[in-house]
């Protein structure tokens, strides 16, 4: 059988050419940029006072330090207030449909390992209509960073309870209080074996930036739950943690390698309990050796899961920071490896493929 030269395999594909061209003409790396460089000309249309502004500013300010060019960054979002995020970022972006951003981002990241892919989503988008895509993205470990803005309410549809709302929440759709038990997004992600899970507060610029940086640098799927205040429909939802008077009491800062001691004067701590669980103790009532030293790199997710279970739905004892950060091959890298392996015998030849199997010749 003769093989037909397509005249193409050696020539760069349009994608290769576009990437090569863009490498030549690459715009300044984000490191050389200022926050304003990735503001767009679009008017930001969140309600005045919304926590989303704070997050947008934090992201815009910290991105330059990542050293990624704007054109190499893609932000994919679903539907909801938070999902307007891409319009305000001078990167590539897609404001997609409700719940599907992780699926769309998966296809993009899997076929373009050269890009930095981000998903911006909310508690309704990611955990209700898009719950399935979220857990599957996490178990696959496609290289992308998912920012889950959790305001514990449906804002864009004007105030129904969400899958993270506390039981008994009185909203327009639940005048006698909601019946649903809420998801703990961090527990859910860890249950899906997510390789990176973190939590941060919208108003805590330093803490948020620190978690975001680690998430962005992680190879694989990172999930960052960001507590975000909806000042119109669920104002003060995180006040317990934000109020300088109560916040330190109920917040457990997670620092890798540091003992889990928290509260005013370090009065509280985290110690082990039976069945692999964790519990809160008074620091002066336990031996220092009993206090858990935080290790985000534990392969077994049970520890991080136990941490996530310390907090109740009223937000008391909420760990903030990076719960889990483990190395695992990322999906798109393994996919690319399979393609390379398949090409070891040479790139596919179309004429050969078409003439594959049992063939016969009909003579003139």
């Amino acid at each position, binding site marked *: 059988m003769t093989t037909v030269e*397509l005249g193409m395999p050696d020539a760069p594909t349009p994608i290769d050419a576009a990437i090569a061209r863009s490498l030549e003409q690459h*715009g300044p790396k984000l490191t050389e940029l200022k926050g304003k460089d990735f503001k767009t000309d679009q008017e930001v249309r969140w309600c005045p006072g919304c926590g989303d502004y704070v997050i947008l500013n934090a992201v815009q300010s910290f991105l330059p330090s990542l050293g990624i060019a704007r*054109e190499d*960054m893609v932000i994919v979002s679903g539907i909801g207030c938070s999902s307007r995020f891409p319009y305000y970022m001078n990167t590539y972006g897609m404001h997609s449909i409700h719940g599907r951003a992780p699926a769309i981002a998966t296809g993009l990241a899997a*076929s373009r390992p050269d890009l930095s892919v981000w998903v911006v989503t909310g508690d309704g988008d990611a955990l209700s209509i898009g719950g399935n*895509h979220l857990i599957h993205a996490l178990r696959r470990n496609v290289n992308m960073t998912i920012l889950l803005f959790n305001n514990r309410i449906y804002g864009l549809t004007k105030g129904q309870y969400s899958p993270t709302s506390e039981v008994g929440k009185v909203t327009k759709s639940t005048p006698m209080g909601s019946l649903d038990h809420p998801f703990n997004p961090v527990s859910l992600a860890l249950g899906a074996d997510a390789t990176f899970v973190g939590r941060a507060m919208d108003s805590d610029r330093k803490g948020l930036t620190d978690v975001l940086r680690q998430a962005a640098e992680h190879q694989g799927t990172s999930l960052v739950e960001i507590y975000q205040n909806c000042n119109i429909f669920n104002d003060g939802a995180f006040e317990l943690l934000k109020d300088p008077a109560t916040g330190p009491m109920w917040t457990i800062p997670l620092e890798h390698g540091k003992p889990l001691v928290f509260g005013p004067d370090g009065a509280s701590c985290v110690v082990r309990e039976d069945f692999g669980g964790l519990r809160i103790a008074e620091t002066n009532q336990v031996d220092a050796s009993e206090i858990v030293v935080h290790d985000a790199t534990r392969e077994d997710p049970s520890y991080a899961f136990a941490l996530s279970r310390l907090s109740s739905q009223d937000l008391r004892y909420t760990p903030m920071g990076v719960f889990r950060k483990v190395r695992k091959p990322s999906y798109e890298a393994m996919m690319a490896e399979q393609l390379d392996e*398949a090409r070891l015998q040479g790139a596919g030849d179309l004429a050969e493929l078409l003439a594959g199997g049992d063939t016969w010749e009909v003579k003139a």
Partner: protein
Amino acid sequence: MTGTNPTVAPSSSNGALATSVSTSAPGGLVKSVVELDRVVIRLAGDSGDGMQLTGNRFTSETASFGNDLKTLPNFPAEIRAPTGTLPGVSSFQLQFADHDVMTPGDAPDVLVAMNPAALKANLAELPGGGLLILDSDEFTPRNLAKVGYATNPIEDGSLEGWQTVSVPLTSMTTDALKDSGLGKKEAERSKNMFTLGLLSWMYHRPTEGTIRFLERQFRRKPEIAAANIAAFRAGYNYGDTTEAFAVSYEIKPAPMKPGRYRNISGNQALALGLVAAGQRSGLPVFLGAYPITPASDILHELSRHKSFGVRTFQAEDEIAGIGAALGASFGGALGITTTSGPGVALKAETIGLAVMTELPLVIVDVQRGGPSTGLPTKTEQSDLLQAMFGRNGEAPVPVIAPRSPGDCFDAAVEAARIALTYRTPVMLLSDGYLANGAEPWAIPDADSLPDLTTAVAFATEPNGEDGEFLPYLRDEETLARAWAIPGTAGMQHRIGGLEKADRTGNISYDPANHDFMTRTRQAKIDGIAATIPPTDVEDPDGDARVAVIGWGSTYGPIGAACRRIRSSGRKVAQIHLRHINPFPADLGEVLARYDRVICPEMNLGQLALLLRAKYLVDVQSHTQVRGMPFRSAELAAVIQDAIDIAGPDTTAPDTTAPAAVDPVAVNGALQ
């Protein structure tokens, strides 16, 4: 052997032409060879009997011998229904001939029934006088009772109307394998190969291909390979020496256009077409799919072609399958999703997003019986209106359909051409019959396939007057928007499902803009008609007054019916559509030429509805949803009625026309 008819006479139950040639065989037996122009064989057995494999092997042998052929696999949705029951019957029908054939045949000439259930489920379709081969070992009281036979049909005379040969296929297989070291149960499983051997002898099929296949298939279990080959040879030799079959049949190769051929199923052809589209466009192929009958084989096939840079992603659900494909398209890949009707329903919202974001995407719907889960393994054409309109808002999508298994290849390339050129999702409507059916396929010259590189021109420079990039600035001719992919410096932009402002693509709620954009999206799809060929009309007489119009897999049955009509001296035109949205530009004009237009469809009249709405033509809809392709005799009757109603043909010189005969009863060779 308890046959009721010891020597089988030449079969011509379906009007096949037979010529008898005597010859002698070893052992002093005089065996005659009868030349036939065509045969329809149906193999029927339990789901576990391997009938599909047997049919596929016989098909491969027949294809490589050079006959033209069409196949019709027919199997239950249950993987293994209880053994020996009617719901568990699986069958495989093929027609092969010394001329081109358009269908797998209306009815079999030969029925092989491996058990009482297979006999009961299929006998009604075997015309009187047809050849019936039964495995007598399986006609036990227990198996007979399972399907409600009070007496054994082999013995009670109820099969007298057919040429019945009952052969102990099972025990002859185990006898042949008694030294193989296999247990009885295991040896029995080779009875399908024994049967294949017998049929291969009967129809003078080449055997090397099957032996090679078995060696390859069981290369890790050489004892199983050896047993199957032994059973296959034993069946062949049995045919050669037994008195039960005094006749074997010869069907000469069909004249075909010179070239290299292979046997191909629709799903396989479609997958190869997608690989070819990737190669010819220079884009990496990305398939996002969720397993679903009868489309999964496309996913399986594409996943084998990683050396072409094809990425296949088995998603968590149908929505993620298309979502990932659209994400890949955004990144500059040829995004594809494959599914069946229920999957299309789930993908609808993402198709709408692809319409709004104006990104290329190929959606393959291998249609099956519906609604809901419907008939997963059966064929139907009832997703046409879903493909056309199954989305919120005004969301026009081009729709194209292949007409035969091999044509799935060209349809896939065409779907990619439209998707890439016009930056739009495209619906490709295959169906269960095309997907699993097979035919000989002239292997195309890879070099002569359409060059799709011109369709892919990524925007790399700002196109706005002020040096900005305007993602919704359009090509004046195609109305396709500028497509810049991530990674291209200075071209950062945001797209999404909210209404876009013309040119800039920014969010716009402006009433006039929405009206303009809605009409522009429609105009873009309508404009595709400029690049598609004129309507395909087959009217050898040139002055038919009745036309039959179809789309998709009905091409074969309609074509066969038209041949019958023409051979009876009547005139009919066949119009077959590849493009259903948009229609070819001249379609309205073409339809207006005919007094009557008949539209057979495997739905309740979906194309007819579109044609009537668009062209105000009084299309006569003829429909069936039996999960099976049309029978050409049935369609011929419908066409004949229409011709009769249309009245005498005053333009045709009646005197020279052959005497009108009943086209329904006309020689089955025209199928």
